[in-house]
């Protein structure tokens, strides 16, 4: 094998592997990313039922209703709210008036059916998207300022 052929083999192999990686990444980016939406954004620009997204905001006061392992609550960002239903175990820090991020789809009746619910990670910390959304709506209380200054 000549030097030239060896070089071509090397470049060829590299090109094949890198284009495989690029193809995988591009196709996965098209199909498997999930958008983050707040209730106000959803009200302004509706999303069709059946497509996945992440919903973020606060669990509205007094909106939690439990029935066995099924739970219903409303997520609000101060501007608009959306009913959510979830079947399963809730995270430790899921509470009324606290930040929450839920992932799932809208059903035909306009209820957000979540398959994953994330709450904030500790007493002082709020999911960043939720904090941003609240600031946008002018409902930011600076609730976790002590935590941020930490």
């Amino acid at each position, binding site marked *: 094998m000549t030097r030239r052929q060896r070089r071509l083999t090397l470049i060829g192999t590299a090109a094949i592997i890198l284009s*495989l990686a690029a193809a995988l990444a591009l196709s*996965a*980016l098209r199909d*498997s*990313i999930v*958008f983050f939406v707040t209730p106000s954004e959803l009200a302004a620009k509706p999303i069709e039922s059946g497509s996945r997204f992440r919903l973020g905001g606060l669990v509205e006061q007094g909106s939690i209703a439990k029935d066995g392992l099924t739970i219903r609550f409303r997520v609000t960002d101060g501007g608009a709210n959306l009913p959510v239903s979830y079947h399963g*175990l809730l995270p430790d820090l899921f509470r009324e008036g606290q930040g929450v991020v839920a992932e799932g789809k809208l059903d035909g009746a306009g209820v957000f059916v979540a398959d994953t619910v994330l709450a904030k*990670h*500790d007493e002082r910390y709020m999911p960043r998207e939720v904090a941003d959304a609240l600031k946008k709506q002018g409902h930011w209380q600076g609730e976790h300022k002590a935590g941020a200054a930490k």
Partner: protein
Amino acid sequence: MIAELAHYALVLAFVLAVLQAILPLWGARKNDLTLMGVAEPLAVASFGFIALSFAGLMACFVRSDFSVLAVYSNSHSLQPLLYKITGVWGNHEGSMVLWVFVLGLFSALVAVFGRNLPARLRANVLGVEALIAAVFLLFILTTSNPFLRIDPAPAEGQQLNPILQDIGLAIHPPLLYLGYVGFSITFAFAAAALIEGRVDAAWARWVRPWILLAWVFLTLGIAMGSYWAYYELGWGGYWFWDPVENASLMPWLAGTALLHSAIVMEKREALKVWTLLLAILTFSLSLLGTFLVRSGVLTSVHSFANDPSRGIFILVILVVFIGGSLALFAVRAPALKQGGLFAPISREGALVVNNLLLTATAATVFTGTLYPLVLEALTGEKISVGAPFFDRTAGPLLLCLLLVMPAGPLLAWKRGDLRGVAERLTFAAGIAAVVAAVTLWLAKGGPILAAAGLFCAIYAIIGALIEFSERLQLFRASASVSLSRARGLPRSAFGTLLAHIGVGVSLLGIVAEAGWSQEKVVALKPGDQISIASFDLSFEGLQQREGKNWRDQVGRFEVRRGGVPVATLEPSKRAYVVSNQPTTEAGIKTFGLGQLYISLGEPMPGGAISARIYWKPLVILIWLGGVVMALGGALSLSDRRLRVGAPKPARRAAMAPAE
């Protein structure tokens, strides 16, 4: 007083690091042996002061000195001693001190064990290492001072985040830091080689023990972190493709590639420029990880520190070091003597494919981790890139890597015998196919992807064993010949075998967990029965239990198998006295290599409780594989030919490179 002394020690360490960064580099340039010689004592002294400062901070935590802000925010007098100590690095400021402590440690290790290095190389390596240390010490002193006082001192602290009050915090961050800060040494070696404009097989030989050392710790750190997340978070998952996890995975992927390319460089004097680039990239990814975790740009389980002003400082460090080293690379690399090209069908050829696949995987993880941040910065749109993305990109690439892996050691250097290798691997593939088919039959079916993964895992393990038995002439020569051949083999050969088997073992666990786990989410009243896999569980009810700084609601589960009681599981909901923040403590029991895992939800009206119950077959193999890989690395490291302090071989013949 202790806090002030410790603060002062940190300032001294900074001054010494600045000197260590300037004098030896200048000495190496001027060929002044005296100036170069100050590097070692400075490195040791600087590390000494960092260690003093670290010890001082630890003393503040142990004594519960709440007049120190970091102690007040992250400790409590009722906290058990262990968590008072681990609380030192359970927060931003303290974890940065741990970071520079590890950096200083490696610097001192090079000073002490690097006596066999040529004076100029050693001076340059220590100089570059000190430059990193100086910048991070400055970062701590100006933006993250852990010794700030509050006046008047509060009577009681706010306690460490309950999720972090776990033995995992004692082990995981130190191991992880030893790993990814350890790669700073290989970065310094690469920068030193570029500054000198000279790099050869001997360089690869000197740098390899450091790569191995860092890699072993990083491997253990990642495995440990994964197990910690698994039992502590209560979701039964062991890897979430969380940006903070990816931040440690990226240097691991690049470091693994580096580990292999350095072998080619040492043995065949090829891939020199590429190896230098990889060394720079690996530590750059470590720095990127530090930035992601420490700057608070992420929303993640691990970001217990968030302050954007620090982020900008780290971003500047990131840009200066990565940009600087890449610029140095761009200027100097073309002038380096190129290594030879080699035949594609050879061990070095296989190692190139290994490198391509590993770096391509690192690149896809990089894309998935940073894409959401970049997109948000540019368009304001918020997206999340989660497990589905990484499963579809890193997954196939790593499976390809596994298919190539056994071929590498089977191929000879320079010119390999593709046919012979293909025959042997067909044999391995045959066995793997049979095992996969039998497993599918025994398990009464399962996902096709899991079967494919199972095939790859067994093929990788058998492939590694075949290569090894060839070297011993097992089954072909008499047992005594095989035994004496085994004695003659270098330890690094056993290291390769173990590390490659470890990869297969981990994959086996991952595949079994993904394909054959069972999960039940239920609401249970006392006396209720439930079955999962071959187990029958009965819920006995809830009990109260008190710990030093927490109160538990324990759910008791009696477990029977075939009517025989085999275990009692006691998962609990834990409320910490100080903050009343609840955590979930999973109940886990190991049966063989599988685990029964129960985590409790909230109590419901009527004495009932919700619970998640999992049976995860072979799940332990996931972490055991990591430990086996690390053992392999440690075994290679102990190889006489690679021993850090080994004298420089005088004769060319003694230079036979380790594998």
